[in-house]
């Protein structure tokens, strides 16, 4: 590749990534030259401003047609734009939570790293959403993962934080290895790492034997990637990691990292396997034949997440299982493969982003003072801080899928998608609805603490500005998208044109 071709690329479409990269680099330098005693909070605000700038540049790109540069490794299609939007909003809110994070011990020395590692992880996730090539996908995945491993262990003097990082690294590496092994099969078959060329090869060259190899690759990739989603069979890490990691990191893992997981799984499954023939008479694509396996994972994830959550007393572990369950609901979307798939996934991830981050902001605030994370810390919150309690109630209701909140519309969307195909996924829908009812137990358990139990500590609660902003934005969005979801749907229809350019 000579300089001329390099310059001829339309680098503008990578502007959001460049901004994040630039800000992250600038922050490392600032951290280096700042005096040791000075508070590093300012770095957080700079990082936040950087994410906002990237968000603005992304919004500027929304009208841009599909485009790919660097030999098809980086593509800007509707899918990339829509999901990057979620990643950026999610990270901006996480950073606000992180700025207000003041643990009793363990973070003083590494405050600076804390902020720019979030940006590095975000960059990885963004690269993934724009990838047209297995190599860049994998690099993005690793950038996200490695940054997250460090973030989980950020509180070096804290035992739980260390345990969390250790478990995360070991489990994560195994999962990544499995994914990579799966990818190697596809590469071996097609002789290319480019998703588009792979698709072309698989459509044109048909061989009985390919089916089995592709099947093997599918299983390995899905199993490996279920780690990022915190879905069965790779969900075991989530409770320990969520519990031990600093709360902003937990929030990041449960929202941004999970969104990234869905991005990569969609990219790979629907680029490669949607184009491979399944070998049956009707010439259906292979992905339809594999539907049932994804459905099985979705069902298992929903059941495991919701049932085990019932027994949790630690609020972060509770939310870990809750987030496993939510991953299960999202897998239902992929398993049903209806014409609404991208819309539904995007809307639910967006709703989940706000309700979960809002909840984590409150969790961080409620638990940080006492240091205990038992759900009894929420006792009497309504007396101490009525607005905090009502906000938490809204987030919990939304997570439980009660009407009036964005979570309900998201679930409605999922049900519809699962029932529209003429072979409706009745079992999957029944499992989803039944486990949703089970989830009432633990979500309402927190509400019982907040509203029915007397407060142990009667002191007034003062909320930092940044957290107030997160809670305010989240509650506004949760209710707005619950009452007037058409704002989001119109935006989707108006700007992303049904995501048709995903397959081009």
């Amino acid at each position, binding site marked *: 590749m000579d300089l001329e071709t390099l310059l001829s690329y339309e680098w503008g479409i990578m502007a959001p990534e460049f901004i994040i990269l630039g800000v992250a680099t600038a922050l490392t330098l600032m951290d280096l030259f700042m005096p040791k005693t000075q508070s590093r909070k300012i770095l957080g605000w700079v990082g936040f401003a950087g994410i906002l700038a990237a968000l603005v540049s992304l919004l500027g790109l929304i009208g841009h047609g599909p485009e790919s540069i660097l030999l098809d490794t980086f593509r800007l299609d509707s899918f990339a734009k829509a999901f990057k939007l979620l990643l950026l909003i999610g990270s901006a809110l996480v950073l606000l939570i992180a700025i207000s994070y003041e643990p009793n011990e363990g973070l003083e020395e590494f405050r600076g790293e804390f902020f720019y590692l979030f940006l590095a992880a975000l960059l990885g996730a963004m690269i993934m959403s724009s990838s047209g090539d297995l190599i860049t996908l994998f690099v993005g995945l690793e950038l996200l993962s490695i940054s997250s491993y460090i973030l989980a262990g950020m509180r070096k003097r804290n035992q739980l934080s260390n345990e969390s990082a250790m478990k995360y690294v070991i489990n994560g590496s195994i999962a990544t290895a499995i994914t990579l092994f799966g990818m190697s099969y596809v590469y071996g078959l097609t002789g290319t790492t480019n998703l588009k060329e792979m698709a072309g090869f698989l459509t044109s060259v048909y061989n009985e034997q390919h089916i089995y190899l592709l099947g093997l690759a599918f299983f390995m990739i899905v199993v490996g990637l279920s780690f990022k989603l915190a879905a069965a069979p790779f969900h075991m890490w989530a409770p320990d990691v969520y519990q031990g990691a600093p709360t902003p990191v937990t929030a990041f893992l449960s929202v941004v990292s999970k969104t990234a997981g869905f991005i990569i799984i969609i990219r790979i499954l629907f680029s490669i396997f949607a184009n491979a023939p399944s070998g049956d008479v009707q010439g259906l694509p292979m992905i339809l034949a594999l539907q049932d396996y994804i459905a099985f994972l979705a069902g298992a994830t929903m059941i495991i997440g919701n049932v085990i959550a019932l027994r949790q007393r630690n609020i972060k572990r509770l939310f870990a299982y809750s987030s496993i369950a939510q991953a299960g609901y999202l897998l239902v979307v992929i398993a049903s493969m209806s*014409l*609404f798939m991208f*819309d539904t996934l995007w809307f639910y991830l967006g709703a989940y982003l706000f309700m979960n981050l809002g909840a984590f902001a409150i969790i961080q605030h409620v638990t940080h003072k006492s240091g205990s994370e038992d759900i009894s810390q929420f006792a009497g919150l*309504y007396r101490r801080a009525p607005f905090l309690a009502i906000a938490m109630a809204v987030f919990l*209701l939304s997570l439980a899928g*009660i*009407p*009036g909140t964005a979570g*309900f*519309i998201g679930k*409605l*969307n999922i*049900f*519809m998608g699962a*029932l*529209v*195909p*003429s072979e*409706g996924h*009745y079992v999957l*829908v*029944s499992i989803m*609805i*039944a486990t*949703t*009812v089970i989830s*009432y*137990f633990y979500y*309402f358990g927190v509400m*019982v603490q907040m*509203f*029915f139990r007397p407060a142990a500590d009667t002191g007034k609660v003062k909320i930092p500005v940044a957290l107030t902003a997160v809670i305010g934005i989240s509650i506004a969005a949760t209710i707005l998208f619950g009452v*007037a*979801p*058409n704002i989001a*749907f*119109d935006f989707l*229809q108006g700007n992303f044109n*049904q995501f048709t350019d995903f397959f081009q």
Partner: protein
Amino acid sequence: MNLAYFLSILVFSPLLGILVLSFLPKTQESLIKTVGFLATIPALVLSLIAYFQYRAGASLDQLNEKVSWIQFGDSSQLGNLFSIDYELGLDGFSLIMIVLTAVLSTLAAIASIHIKKEWKGYFMLFLLLEVGMLGVFAAENLILFFIFFEITLIPTFFLIGKWGYFEKENAAYSFLIYNGLGSAVLLIVIMVLFARTGTANIDALMAAMNSDNPQLVAPISENMKMGLLIALLIAFGVKLPIFPLHSWMVRVHVQAPPSIVMLHAGVLLKIGAFGLIRFGMGIFPEQFQSLAVWLAVLGVVNLLYGAFLAFVQTDFKMVLAYSSISHMGIVLIGLGALNEAGIQGAIFQVVSHGLIAALLFFLVGVFYERVQTSNIQNLGGLAKGMPITAGFLLAGAMASLGLPGMSGFVSEFMAFLGLFKEMPILAAVGTIGIIMTAVYLLRAVLGITYGKAHRDFAGITDLKKFEYVPVLVLVGLIVLIGVYPSVLSEPLTSTLETIMLGIGG
């Protein structure tokens, strides 16, 4: 009646009260109670206006509202499919239910004077509950119906769990889980219908499901229709409640504060009957006919089971709870008969029992407030201390056991008339229940009011002025329906005609 947004204003008017309440200081007890009470008035006035206008011959169609709300997928390709409108409307039946809801809400707000703590939170939830209940009856599409249906769930959970009696949290949880499961099943039915037909509008669904050549997105087989109807029966059966699904309701009746039980027994349970009639009969008429026998059997089982268990209870609230189960059996009997008399009887029973249950629970609240017990064995001789309360209690019991001249008689008579026409043997078995009703109610009421007093009732005051209002209004309505049933039957005529047309009767 040419007001735009008339129904929306009616349904959401209690929100105004919530808004005002949120600015009031927590400690202003009497102010909060006044605002809470006043906030129920607009809905009452508007619903009465609608009722009298309708009686005067105005058409209810002009009240319909429709605003497009959610569009799933790409509207340029899908057209009207998979769009959900915000649409409200009324027919005779739902109009009556709205009036019932508005009346009982106002009266329950008066009964809420007995609430002892955290009035602000209580009234905010109370008013939210009212919005949900009004909305359920005004909703013109299934998804909107479901949303309002769920909106009733959350405030009720908190109202029971925070302001109830000793085992309030258990009662709240069992309410939540049973009803959560019920609405989960309901949601499956709604979503299957929506996904298969592309519409959630009730009239459009009725048309689509009953036409010979329906325009569907995906096919619905006859077996699936049957399955959907049975699911619907389970969903509303939890709410009504139908025999094996009733245990939560007994707990709620005993543990919840009386003002909430008034609404719960008076309106919330009736949503089950409303749903069965409107959706079960309306959308699946053919399947409903083949299930009618089973409904009648379930009705008789409910009637007898409730009556026998009510007979052995020692707590008056338990007697009333089982009596509610028993009386809901009569609704099922009427529906199972599937002729005009039967269905009319069922609807009458819905309204009549709503009023009677509200009256009895209000009176329970009144004397519980004064003597701190509702156990029949610890009471007795209440007529000495509170003669007027005791008198009304007896009146309520008489209405409940179906004394001619009161509303209970009309509904029971019609429901059984319907069933005797279709299944005389079953009906004959069912009449045992009516006798049982008289036995257990008289035993309980006489045990409380007459006999030897277990304690000294000196110093206990009888009904206070404000307590007369709900009692007199309810007794008045009960007698009015009893002696002049056309206050109900006339608005119902067109609804009944539509139903009978659907089931081909």
